[in-house]
């Protein structure tokens, strides 16, 4: 029986100097390189395929299969790009991972690059996290100095160079083709697909783009075997994943567990919703995934389970909101976020988010009628599936799901001519204010 929590990537985080090469190596770090170099690149791909690892950046595409799409008969250089642009509201796993254990990412980069036969890899980190960038920069430098990077790594004849690249503030660059645009020094606007990055990605060359956690999961798979990884998780969602609890819970934080754990189990570990309050709504995988409520506490948090319940596992970003929170205010704020982050390329997202914000602002202030709710849903219908990329779709998720679950609360705003909630009650310090 597998334990409830399975620290693999987080296991090093309580070490004193977890980001240092020496710490990582003491615990067997970089040993997977020699295991891999003794295998053919294709066998590494097979191992990752067999493990059942699926992309940890949200979409859940099988990682090994993504690698196998790289056309090896293409004479152009192959590239690995790590998507470390963690920006989805609620998502906060890759940042502590890179801060606390950057070497597992670097080792994963080496293994993954070896598998797809790339000699150049890029780690695209969002720019707004300077200390994380320092840690990854230093880890790459240490790895070079120790011979884990550069030419003829470990005497294998395999060469790899890694560039740490800082972004500059654009949520959309989490979309993989927009990220490539950013990495090519352009505006981060998604590209037309096809061609897919596996065929024509960075510099129009075959490119694999993977999330930080996906890549960081590779060393343990190579070292411990596909079966070991597959012994965790559920049938179609194998392995361990970091679950990020935030908001109105007693102990917010990172919980690394097999996929398929439920929010009820996680809340038990985290001490429950904050004292004296009840769960009202939550996001299973960030703000772009439709909201869940208390009725979804036992949904298995794996790709199939969450999808079956009408949302998406996403990045396992569990934002917990209790009954003090106005869902209309929450959704309005997310809509403002999408409006701010819309890249502007396509009409439905650019103009649609503009409209959503205005419509929600009016509703939140108590203006309008129930008809406006239906019109809002119709607007969402005109955006969902019509936009160029998934950002527009994501913008509609909180709106449609909140109206589905909390239509009465919207109507209460209209009846009362404003928001019936006191925002002060939901702050982190609201309990203490009475005594202060």
């Amino acid at each position, binding site marked *: 029986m597998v334990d409830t929590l399975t620290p693999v990537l987080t296991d090093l985080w309580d070490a004193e100097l977890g980001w240092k090469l020496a710490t990582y190596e003491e615990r067997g770090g970089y040993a997977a390189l020699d295991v891999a170099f003794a295998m053919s690149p294709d066998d590494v791909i097979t191992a990752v395929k067999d493990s059942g690892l699926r992309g940890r950046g949200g979409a859940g595409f099988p990682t090994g299969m993504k690698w196998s799409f790289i056309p090896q008969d293409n004479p152009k250089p192959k590239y690995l790009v790590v998507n470390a642009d963690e920006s989805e509201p609620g998502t906060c796993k890759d940042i502590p991972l890179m801060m606390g254990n950057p070497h597992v990412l670097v080792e994963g980069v080496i293994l993954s690059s070896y598998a797809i036969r790339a000699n150049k890899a890029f780690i695209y980190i*969002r720019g707004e*996290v300077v200390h994380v960038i320092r840690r990854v920069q230093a880890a790459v430098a240490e790895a070079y100095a120790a011979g884990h990077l550069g030419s003829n790594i470990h005497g294998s004849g395999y060469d790899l160079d890694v560039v740490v690249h800082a972004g500059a503030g654009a949520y959309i660059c989490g979309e993989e083709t927009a990220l490539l645009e950013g990495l090519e020094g352009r505006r981060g606007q998604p590209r037309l697909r096809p061609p897919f990055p596996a065929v024509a990605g960075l510099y129009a060359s075959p490119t694999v783009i993977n999330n930080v956690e996906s890549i960081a999961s590779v060393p343990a798979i190579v070292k411990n075997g596909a079966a070991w990884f597959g012994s965790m998780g559920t049938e179609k969602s194998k392995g361990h994943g970091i679950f990020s609890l935030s908001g109105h819970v007693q102990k917010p934080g990172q919980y690394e567990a097999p996929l398929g754990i439920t929010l009820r189990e996680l809340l038990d570990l985290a001490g429950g919703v904050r004292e004296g309050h009840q769960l009202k709504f939550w996001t299973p995988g960030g703000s772009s995934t439709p909201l869940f409520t208390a009725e979804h506490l036992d949904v298995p948090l794996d790709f199939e389970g969450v999808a079956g319940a009408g949302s998406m596992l996403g990045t396992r970003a569990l934002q917990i909101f209790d009954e003090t929170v106005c869902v209309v205010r929450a959704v309005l704020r997310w809509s403002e976020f999408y409006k701010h982050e819309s890249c502007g390329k396509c009409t439905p997202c650019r103009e649609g988010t503009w409209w959503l914000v205005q419509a929600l602002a009016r509703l939140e202030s108590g203006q309008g009628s129930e008809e406006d709710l239906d019109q809002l849903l119709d607007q969402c219908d005109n955006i969902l599936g019509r936009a160029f990329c998934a950002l527009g779709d994501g913008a509609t998720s909180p709106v449609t799901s909140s109206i589905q679950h909390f239509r009465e609360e919207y109507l209460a705003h209209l009846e009362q001519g404003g928001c019936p909630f006191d925002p002060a009650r939901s702050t982190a310090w609201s309990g203490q204010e009475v005594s202060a």
Partner: protein
Amino acid sequence: MSNQPSANQLDDKTIAELREIAARYPEPRSGLLPMLHLVQSAQGRITPEGIEACAAILEISAAEVNGVATFYTMYKRHGVGDYHVGVCTNTLCAVMGGDAIFQRLKDHLEIGNDEVAAQRQGDSRTVSLEHIECNAACDYAPVVMVNWEFMDNQTPESAVQMVEALRVGHDVSSTRGPKLCTWREAERVLAGFPDGRVDEGPTAGTASLAGLEIARERGWSAPDPSVAPAKEPTDG
């Protein structure tokens, strides 16, 4: 048009470093984002001269550089303070108190969004304020960033104390990072020139360790690879 002191020509060292950034990549244009970070480090903002310099080095048009510089929110077209304070007001942080913190700081500093507070008599440093989007630290909500370093679990009071300390020149450290450097120094790190502060701060903050601590208490771990089936993938 303006002759702000920060807007003078880029010096030779900066030009050389811009070229150095471009040379890191198979295609030079890939260097543009870090290059613009370096322009900000050198000049305090994105200047027309900086745009020109990047365009010349990369052999692209100034309009193209301008298009990039105006797309990403970290690039500033007007100056910011020595310490640029960003208050997360995305939903979760806002609900947890980010809105209150932002309002308190606006009132306290007597500025609006994306403005620089007046430097008072005796202040040795300037502070600017901006509301920001989710910075991937939701388990530390409400979160404030200063020069893109984490200031976790803030309250209106703690935030005011912090900006006051910064203005008068006291050392302030990130709650899980190093002693705060200036905005321009931080921009230099983003351009790919490390500043030697990497070993400051802990491996992880308290919230990051929440699950790990429980696992340690209860003796939970990932399966022992030597026990788990070695070769065959599980058949479910």
